[in-house]
């Protein structure tokens, strides 16, 4: 039986969103020219959450887009087929600072696919990455600019970020399968 350990409550997530929102604005010296782009699926509500946090203290409506990376994956023939979801960018990303938003940063392959997808859509001046959880085990030279929480994990474990829009609850849990916990396996 898999067991779940609570890593972050909804309240913890709210504080993290608030902190990252401030970090984004601080680092970019304001919110003008910013575009928040959530990676399908759970990055999208997180990006909206960040945008409303920024609007609350900076009085700027940062445009929020959604990006589906599945058509750019490098493992399309080696794993079950992912469902392609909508890509919608509310504004042209040319000459903008794009902050990619995702729930979990793991191997870095999704971020790689997102960068390629984004480059086909325009030429941002800069691309930054914000994630709720960084769980390590990178397979590519990619790092996040804004991290909600660093969580050391074993490869057999899973980090699940639950968001209200899809899961009716905001929380982050670590799922350990008793049989595989602690074992090193190739991440899928």
């Amino acid at each position, binding site marked *: 039986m898999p067991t779940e350990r609570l890593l972050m409550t909804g309240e913890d997530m709210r504080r993290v969103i608030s902190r990252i929102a401030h970090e984004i604005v601080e680092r970019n010296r304001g919110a003008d020219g910013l575009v928040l782009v959530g990676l399908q699926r759970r990055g999208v509500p997180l990006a909206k959450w960040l945008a409303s946090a920024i609007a609350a203290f900076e009085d700027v409506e940062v445009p929020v887009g959604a990006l589906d990376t*599945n058509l750019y994956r490098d493992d*399309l023939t080696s794993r079950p087929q992912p469902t392609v979801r909508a890509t919608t960018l509310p504004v042209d990303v040319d000459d903008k600072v794009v902050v990619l938003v995702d729930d979990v940063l793991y191997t870095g392959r999704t971020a790689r696919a997102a960068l390629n997808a984004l480059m086909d859509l325009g030429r941002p001046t800069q691309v930054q990455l914000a994630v709720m959880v960084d769980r390590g085990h990178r397979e590519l030279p990619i790092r996040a600019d804004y991290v909600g929480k660093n969580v050391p994990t074993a490869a057999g474990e899973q980090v699940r970020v639950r968001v209200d829009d899809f899961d009716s609850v905001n929380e982050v849990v670590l799922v350990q399968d008793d049989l595989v916990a602690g074992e090193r396996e190739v991440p899928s």
Partner: protein
Amino acid sequence: MTTRAPAETAPGTSVAPRRHVLDLDDFSAGEIHALLDSAEAMREVLGRSIKKVPSLRGKVVITLFLEPSTRTRVSFEQAGKMLSADVINIGGAGSAAEKGESLLNTALTLQAMHADLIVIRHPHSGAPYFLARNLTSTAVVNAGDGMHAHPTQALLDLMTMRRHLGSLEGAKVVIVGDVLHSRVARSNAFGLATSGASVVLCGPPTMMPLDLLHAGRTPSLPNVTVEPDLDAAIEGADVVMTLRLQSERQEAGMLPSLREYTRRWQVNEARMSLAKPGALLMHPGPMNEGVEIASSLAHGGLAQIEEQVTNGVALRMALLYQLLTGTEERP
């Protein structure tokens, strides 16, 4: 099919991946729904300035069209290219088929050239099934076989209808004309009935597909009925699809006269006014204006024709993506 319906449409389904798409008679509602959702996502790629994604890089798609076609063939070619597959087109004229090479030998040759997928159009009903049985490593997509099936055309019709109506569930769709000889109408009937629409077939009794309605088919198509009177059939319809009348049908004795056909089964403005306000009028083309459709409607009422072309490419992208990516087993 490859469509493992996503969890939100069909929880707990674990369907073996589909290798071929030959008709819609073996699709579930969940599969159709998932495919149309995927096609909606593909429409976004069509609107970009760089209309290409790398999903099918290194895959070879061959279109083998042994019957004339422009729209369907180009649509498949464009869909494959936008997903970065290499697309090779083979027609009847200029190929070894002209020298008398059999269909099987042509297909085996293409398979030996490591084609990942063959899109076939053939004048004989059942030809794609023959290929699917005999090819071991190449997927087959039916792009129209004789008077039997045209699943991708039907899927794009379903996509257009769903975009207009929001949902196919409970919609009333009237198909008027020579249903018997129309592969588009047959595949539409299966896809619509499976998706929960009610289908009314209307036309001369000599042109009704009795095989669809009897011969053991009735239980699988519970929502399909026949109503020979067009005024009665069209009453309250959400969608009216009128089919091309081929002139040779009259010579074959299936019609008393073109004039009578036009009087009883032409879709005109007065008849469309019996349908629901804003009902969708569709025609698979090419149209005989003044025969199955009044000229005034042919020019004004089919605003979705351009949308159909876009939907066709998006739908075929979704289909190629589903057939050519993913592994055999679920996690």
